[in-house]
C-alpha cells in the first residue's frame, strides 16, 4: 500500500496546488506547525479550485445525453433519466476540478475543449453499448434482469442492495464505492443494486475513457462536497465518491483494499484471463454472494484504524501466554502448512509462519486484514470447519492458499483458528492439526486465559489529559522483516458513541493525511481542534497519533508523550508480538506458493476455464 501511494505521489506532484494557508515552507517544529494550522480543522476544498481544470462537464453535453437516452432504450423507467441528471449536477454544480496526469497543461486544456462536442456523443455511445449488453446478449438465463428481480425479493437480500438509488438518502451516503469493468459493466456498488446504477457507472466509465483517449489517466474530481477518486487496476475500474473529507491518497488506498479483496477471492490471473477472453463478461457471476464480504470490508475500513495505518492490531497478552500459544501452534504442523494464526475478538493473538516461505517474502498487514475480514464475514455458521481457497494478493496475487477456519470455543465463537496450506487436498491433515491444538489448549487451560485478555484503557498509561493514542513502531527487535503492528487503547468516553468514535477517527485521518501529504510531508503536527487537541509525530522509529483534552498545553503534551513512550517501551512485550515464531514444514519446492507449477494448475483448475 505504502509503495503504491508513493509512486502515485510522485506522478501527482504535477497537479498539486497548495491552499493559501499552507504556502509557507515545510516546518519541523511544533511552533511553526501550530501557527500554520491555526484552528482550521480541514482545509477548505474550494481552495483547490486554483488548480488547472483539465476537463469540465459542459451543461450542453449533459442535456444531450439525457435527450438521447430514451431513443437509445425506451424500456427503462424515468429514473434512469433522473440518475443521469444527478450525475451531471453532482459534478457540474460546483465547477469540478478533474485532475489527471497531463504531460503538458496548456495543450491539454485546448484538447479538452476541442473534444467536448465529441464527448457528448461518446457518452451516448457508451451508454447505448451498456444497454445492449444488459438486454441479454451473452447473458445466461440465470442473470437475466427478470430473474434477478426475482432473487432480490427473496429475504436474503436485505441491507443496502435494494436501496432506491434515486432517493436523496442514497446520495447522502458518506462514501460510495463502485467497481466496474472496462466495458462499463457494473460489478459492485456499496449502496443500491448494480443494475439500477448501470447508467451511472456508464458515465463513470465514459469519464475514464474520455481522459484516457488523450493519453491521460483520470485520478480525481473535486466538487464542493465530494471527492471522486478513480483507480484503474487491470480490467477493473474502482471509483469512490466521498464526502468524508479524506485525502485522495487515503481514498485511493481504500479502493486498493477493495481491489485486493476481489483479488483474494478470484486471483489477479483469472480476472485478467476472463476479461481477455470476453471483454463484457459480467464478473458479478463470480462475485455473487461475496457482496457481504466487500460491504464488511468497507465498514471495517471506515471504523478500524488498522487500514489507515496499514498495520495489524494484536490483543495485549502476557508474553508467557502468547509464547505458550505460539508453541502450541508450532507443534501442530503438517506438510505444506504455511501460516497458523490464532485470533480472539477479531484481533491477533499470535501468528506462526513457515520458515522458508517467510524468508522468501513477508506477510503484509493488508493480507492479514483481508483474512480477518473474511472470517468476520463468513461467521454465520460457526459450528463447522471451513475449507476455502483464498489468495493473499500482496503475497502472490496469482495463486490460492487453502484456508482452514474453525472456532475453538463454540458456541461463543470468539477464538478462531486459521491455518493456511498450499495443498488443496490437505483438509483432513490440517483438521488433524486443529485437533492437536485443541487438545494442547485444553491441557494448558488456554481458552479461559484468552477469555480474560482484553484491550487496555488509556488510564493504565497514567498520563492525565491523554485521551487516546495510536502507536506504530518501525523499529522491530528481530533482525528479519516483521509484520507491521500498532497498539491503541480502547476508545472510551468521550469517544464512547459511534458518532464520536467516527469523529475521532476522522481527526486521525486528517492528521494522517497532513503527515503523509505528498506535496509537503510533515513530521510533527500539533493541532488544536474544537473539542480536543491532537499531536501527531513521525520519526524513523515510530508513527504516533495522540489525542488530548482541549486544555492541554504544548509543554504538557510533550511531557505526556515522553511518558507515553516510556510506558509503551515497558509494556512492549505485552502489546506486540515481539518475536514472531516460525516452524518448518519443509514444503516440497514445487508446491511452494511462489509461482510453482502446481499453482498454475490450482488457478486454472478453479472452474474459470469452464466459464469461458
Amino acid at each position, binding site marked *: 500500500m505504502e509503495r503504491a501511494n508513493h509512486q502515485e505521489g510522485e506522478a501527482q506532484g504535477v497537479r498539486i496546488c497548495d491552499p493559501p494557508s499552507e504556502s509557507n515552507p515545510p516546518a519541523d517544529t511544533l511552533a511553526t506547525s501550530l501557527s500554520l494550522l491555526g484552528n482550521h480543522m480541514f482545509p477548505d476544498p474550494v481552495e483547490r479550485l486554483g488548480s488547472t481544470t483539465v476537463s469540465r462537464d459542459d451543461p450542453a453535453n449533459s442535456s444531450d445525453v439525457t435527450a438521447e437516452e430514451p431513443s437509445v432504450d425506451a424500456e427503462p423507467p424515468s429514473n434512469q433519466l433522473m440518475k443521469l441528471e444527478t450525475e451531471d449536477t453532482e459534478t457540474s454544480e460546483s465547477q469540478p476540478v478533474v485532475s489527471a496526469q497531463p504531460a503538458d497543461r496548456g495543450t491539454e486544456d485546448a484538447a479538452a475543449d476541442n473534444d467536448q462536442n465529441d464527448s457528448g456523443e461518446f457518452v451516448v455511445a457508451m451508454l447505448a453499448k451498456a444497454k445492449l449488453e444488459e438486454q441479454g446478449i451473452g447473458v445466461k438465463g440465470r442473470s437475466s434482469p427478470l430473474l434477478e428481480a426475482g432473487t432480490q425479493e427473496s429475504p436474503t437480500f436485505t441491507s443496502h442492495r435494494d436501496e432506491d438509488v434515486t432517493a436523496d438518502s442514497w446520495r447522502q451516503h458518506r462514501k460510495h464505492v463502485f467497481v466496474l469493468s472496462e466495458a462499463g459493466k457494473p460489478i459492485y456498488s456499496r449502496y443500491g443494486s448494480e443494475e439500477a446504477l448501470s447508467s451511472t457507472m456508464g458515465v463513470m466509465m465514459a469519464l475514464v475513457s474520455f481522459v484516457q483517449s488523450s493519453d491521460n489517466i483520470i485520478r480525481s474530481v473535486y466538487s464542493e462536497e465530494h471527492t471522486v477518486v478513480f483507480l484503474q487496476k487491470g480490467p477493473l475500474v474502482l471509483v469512490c465518491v466521498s464526502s468524508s473529507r479524506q485525502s485522495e491518497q487515503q481514498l485511493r488506498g481504500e479502493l486498493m483494499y477493495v481491489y485486493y479483496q476481489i483479488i483474494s477471492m478470484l486471483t489477479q490471473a483469472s480476472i485478467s484471463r476472463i476479461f481477455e477472453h470476453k471483454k463484457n463478461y459480467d464478473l458479478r457471476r463470480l462475485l455473487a454472494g461475496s457482496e457481504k464480504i466487500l460491504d464488511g470490508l468497507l465498514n471495517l475500513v471506515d471504523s478500524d484504524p488498522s487500514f489507515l495505518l496499514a498495520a495489524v492490531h494484536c490483543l495485549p497478552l502476557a508474553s508467557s501466554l502468547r509464547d505458550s500459544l505460539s508453541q502450541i501452534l508450532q507443534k501442530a504442523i503438517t506438510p505444506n502448512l504455511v501460516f497458523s494464526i490464532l485470533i480472539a475478538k477479531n484481533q491477533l493473538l499470535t501468528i506462526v509462519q513457515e520458515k522458508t516461505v517467510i524468508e522468501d517474502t513477508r506477510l503484509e498487514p493488508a493480507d492479514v486484514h483481508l483474512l480477518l475480514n473474511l472470517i468476520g464475514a463468513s461467521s454465520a455458521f460457526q459450528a463447522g470447519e*471451513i475449507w476455502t481457497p483464498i489468495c493473499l494478493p500482496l503475497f502472490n496475487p496469482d495463486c490460492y492458499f487453502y484456508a482452514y477456519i474453525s472456532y475453538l470455543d463454540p458456541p461463543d465463537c470468539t477464538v478462531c483458528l486459521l491455518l493456511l496450506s498450499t495443498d488443496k487436498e490437505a483438509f483432513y491433515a490440517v483438521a488433524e492439526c486443529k485437533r492437536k491444538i485443541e487438545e494442547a489448549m485444553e491441557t494448558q487451560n488456554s481458552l479461559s486465559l484468552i477469555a480474560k485478555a482484553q484491550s487496555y484503557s488509556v488510564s493504565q498509561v497514567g498520563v492525565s489529559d491523554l485521551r487516546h493514542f495510536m502507536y506504530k513502531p518501525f523499529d522491530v527487535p528481530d533482525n528479519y522483516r516483521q509484520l507491521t503492528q500498532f497498539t491503541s487503547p480502547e476508545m472510551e468516553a468521550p469517544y464512547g458513541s459511534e458518532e464520536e468514535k467516527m469523529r475521532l477517527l476522522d481527526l486521525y485521518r486528517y492528521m494522517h493525511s497532513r503527515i503523509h501529504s505528498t506535496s509537503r510531508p510533515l513530521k510533527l503536527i500539533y493541532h488544536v481542534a474544537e473539542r480536543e487537541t491532537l499531536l501527531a509525530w513521525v520519526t524513523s522509529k515510530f508513527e504516533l497519533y495522540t489525542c488530548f483534552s482541549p486544555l492541554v498545553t504544548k509543554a504538557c503534551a510533550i511531557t505526556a508523550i515522553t511518558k507515553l513512550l516510556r510506558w509503551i517501551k515497558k509494556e512492549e512485550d505485552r502489546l506486540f508480538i515481539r518475536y514472531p515464531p516460525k516452524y518448518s514444514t519443509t514444503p516440497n519446492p514445487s508446491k511452494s506458493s511462489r509461482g510453482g507449477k502446481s499453482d498454475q494448475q490450482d488457478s486454472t483448475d478453479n472452474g474459470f476455464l469452464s466459464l469461458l
Partner: protein
Amino acid sequence: MPDKMKRPDVKLVLLGDMNVGKTSLLHRYMERKFKETVSTVGGAFFLKQWGPYNISIWDTAGREQFHGLGSMYCRGAAAVILTYDVTNWQSLAELEERFLSLTDTANHDCIYAIVGNKADLTDPKAHLSRTSDGQPEDQTECEEERTEPQVLSACPTPPASPASLSGVMLHKQVTHEDAVALYGRILRYKGLDEKSSLPAEKVCFETSAKTGYNVDALFETMFDLVLPSILRKRHENQESPTVDLEDSQGAHSRKARIGCC
C-alpha cells in the same frame, strides 16, 4: 480431553445453486433453528454422530466462484443431496448443468437425493413443521412473514417464462414431477438401472428450512440409506485399505507426525 479425531465413516455432500438454502437446511437440522445465513465460502465440514457412526457432511458454496472445488468436496461421497429452490426453475436447471458433473468423483454406489427447499413459500402444508421438536414460535413467526396468496400455485410455470416472478407472490416453479424427472435423468447419466436403484419417491423431497418441514426426514432418510455403504466400506477396508480416501488422508497426517516430531 476432547476425543481424538473422530474418523468419519461416510461422507455426505450438499450441492446446489447459491441461495437455495443448503446452509439453512443443515443449520435447521443440526441446531434446530432457522437463522439468516451469509453466503458460504468454500465448503464447511460438519461431523454428525448417527448411532455408532460418524457421518461427515460437507456444506458447499453454491457460488460459481467456488465451482472448481466441487469435485474435491464430492470425492468419495456416499450420498449427494442436490438442492434446488421450488420457487426458482433455474436452480433446478443448474443442478443438471453445473452440479451433476461434479459428482463424477463420488462413489460408484453414491445415493442421490433431490431436494426442493423453501416449500413454505408455495405450499401451505409446509407451514406445519414436521420436525419432532418443532418450536411453536418458529411457526407463528413464519406465518406472519410468509403468507403469500397461493392462487397461482396450481399451475406450474413453464420453464421458459420466468416473467411471473415480477409479481409479489412467489409461486411454485418446480413441481415434484420435475424433480422426479430429473432423478430419472441422473440415473441415466450415471448409467444406473432405474429398477435396481432407489425409487424416486424415496429420495425426492420438498423441505422448508424455515419451518423445519421435512428436514429431519430428509437427513435421517439419507443417513439410513448410507448405512449399508458404511458397513460395506468397513468390510472392504479390512481387505484393501487403499480404496478409502479418508484413510489415505489419515496415513498422510501420520506420516507428517513422523516427519516433524
